């Protein structure tokens, strides 16, 4: 009798547990590199072919599901997922479809990474025109945020795109270029996945070249002049990257800049052409670790980094290798903290006064753990609808260590909004793929056409099939 009672109770409990689990808990969890927005998505679907993608999109007509598109998920404000929505993982969709070395064109599926392209085109002596400094990102993701990089002679990624195919919210596929469906071109690139799925892209390439790296120390006050007169005006300089100190003893004053100057003897390229692989990263990882913990650590990291870069001055590197920097030393694991990025754009001639104002704000924020600032240059590029380079700009990428708790996020948000105000006051703007710290008003100031962008989105995708955290937050 008691046995029957137990069997009954146990079966009931079993069924209840299974029911609750399948209803509420079996949904996969998604999170991006910012690690501030863990969410339960409805399902993660692998993009293992064009037919699959078409099916996924047309299914939403019946099921009413909403879609988000994910590549490497290095955007940090949930641009690649949304709670309860289907997340399409584009990584398996990564074939090279066509390569015409003589025309310097390559067509790849959107899930391919820059590394995939580099591996493919390096033997032919070709290189990418514009990409991030790291090569781990997918092409589709990079297009959706319209990236820029170290290259100072080609504007943003959009300028190197010939055409792409777009799977629209209604399930049909169209070709988009500057002549075909041209009105969509500036919306989809830098469109954060809100207009449909970019299937494949044709990019124009350039020659792989040999560069000599020239690194020098300078004061932040001289930087604008140095850049305009000695970098911009010197056609031999192809890429440029600078760092400004975040160490207490030289905070936002000392800088060093590396120019990639086309080497006089290009025959040497052969010796440097092999693609480098990730080196052992224990040492930079250790110093970055120290700099997370104290001002002294930051001083040590800055001095060692600067010395290392100055010593490397005069060495050679191929264009392809200059576009595949190490990233592994930055991986950071902590259950309570995370590392987030911010990127601010400020006109070249505003740089020194901007840094002065930024220093004034940050010197009052003793707890704000700023680990690194790199400075790149991006030429005016207003082709993308949400363009960040309204004029010739310096782009400052800030790496910030912060807590994940609600309180810590709020604290970081306060400082970040102050920094954005400073940036906007200097005719600047900020980059959108990061956490939704900026206020709606700041968004409208940085991107005066944002409302028009959202209107176009609603007109093109009236059922809002494609969504993400960024859209839901600011629409």
């Amino acid at each position, binding site marked *: 009798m008691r046995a029957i009672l137990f069997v009954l109770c146990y079966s009931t409990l*079993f069924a209840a*547990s299974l029911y609750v689990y399948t209803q509420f808990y079996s949904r996969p*969890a998604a999170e991006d590199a910012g690690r501030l927005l863990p969410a339960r998505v409805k399902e993660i679907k692998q993009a293992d072919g064009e037919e699959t993608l078409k099916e996924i999109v047309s299914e939403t007509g019946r099921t009413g599901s909403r879609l988000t598109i994910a590549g490497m998920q290095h955007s940090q404000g949930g641009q690649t997922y949304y709670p309860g929505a289907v997340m399409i993982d584009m990584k398996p969709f990564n074939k090279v479809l066509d390569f015409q070395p003589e025309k310097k064109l390559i067509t790849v599926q959107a899930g391919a990474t820059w590394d995939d392209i580099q591996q493919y085109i390096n033997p032919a002596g070709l290189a990418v025109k514009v990409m991030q400094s790291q090569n781990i990102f997918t092409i589709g993701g990079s297009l959706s945020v319209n990236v820029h990089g170290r290259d100072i002679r080609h504007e943003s990624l959009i300028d190197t795109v010939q055409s792409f195919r777009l799977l629209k919210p209604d399930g049909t596929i169209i070709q988009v270029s500057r002549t075909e469906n041209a009105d969509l071109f500036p919306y989809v690139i830098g469109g954060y996945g809100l207009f449909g799925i970019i299937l494949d892209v044709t990019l124009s390439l350039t020659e792989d070249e040999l560069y000599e790296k020239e690194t020098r120390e300078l004061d932040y006050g001289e930087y604008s002049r140095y850049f305009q007169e000695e970098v911009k005006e010197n056609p031999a300089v192809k890429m440029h990257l600078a760092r400004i100190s975040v160490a207490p003893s030289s905070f936002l004053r000392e800088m060093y800049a590396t120019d990639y100057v086309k080497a006089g003897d290009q025959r040497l390229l052969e010796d440097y052409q092999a693609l480098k692989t990730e080196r052992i990263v224990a040492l930079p990882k250790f110093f970055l670790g120290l700099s997370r913990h104290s001002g002294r650590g930051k001083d040590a990291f800055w001095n060692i980094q600067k010395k290392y870069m100055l010593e490397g001055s005069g060495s050679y590197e191929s264009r392809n290798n200059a576009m595949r920097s190490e990233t592994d030393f930055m991986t950071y694991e902590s259950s309570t903290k995370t590392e987030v990025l911010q990127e601010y754009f400020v006109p070249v001639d505003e740089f020194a006064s901007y840094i002065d104002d930024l220093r004034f704000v940050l010197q009052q924020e003793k707890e704000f753990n700023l680990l690194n600032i790199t400075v790149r240059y991006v030429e005016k590029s207003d082709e993308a609808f949400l363009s960040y380079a309204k004029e010739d700009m310096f782009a400052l990428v800030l790496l910030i260590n912060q807590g994940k708790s609600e309180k810590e996020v709020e604290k970081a948000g306060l400082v970040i909004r102050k920094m954005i105000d400073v940036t906007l006051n200097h005719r600047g703007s900020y980059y959108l793929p990061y956490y939704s710290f900026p206020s709606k008003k700041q968004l409208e100031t940085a991107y005066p056409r944002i409302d028009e962008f959202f209107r176009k989105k609603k007109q093109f995708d009236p059922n809002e099939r494609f969504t993400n955290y960024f859209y839901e937050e600011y629409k």
Partner: protein
Amino acid sequence: MGYRQLVLSQSIVFMAGSMIFPFYVLLLRNVGDSYSQFGWAYGLFALASAVSYPLIGKWADRFGDKKLLLFYSLAMAALLLFFPLVTAVWQVYVLQIMMGILGAVQKNTEKAALARSTDKKHAGSDMGRYHFWTSVAAAASIIITGYLVDFLTIAAIFYIASLLYAASGIIIWRKHL
């Protein structure tokens, strides 16, 4: 309780236990991921066992081994149903404490039952056989589960283990074997 009944039921208990044990860490990893949390989770388990041993020892003599082992199997079967639903570290801690207490029930009673069901002369070889069968069951289940996890989710492992505990309970429940 007979020797064969003990060996069979406890073999199934070991199967279920070793099925969840290695993968239980994955659950912890999903919920919280600092080493101090691992430390606390296992520390609470051990501490809960430690403080409950003396009491359990007395109960074994008062209620009999069979009842306690039955209680262990059925309670574990029920407890495991909560594992797939865990979302916070404190829930892991609570489950660990309960697992610690139940673990102590099993360990203590298993030994008492062994001692009572064997005669002193053959105690060594009986214990040897007991450990042989229960360890074989444990090893087999670890290996099989490794493959199962590829096809099923971690949650499914907990449900299967729960059913195994229930099965071991039913074997103990039956009067003769």
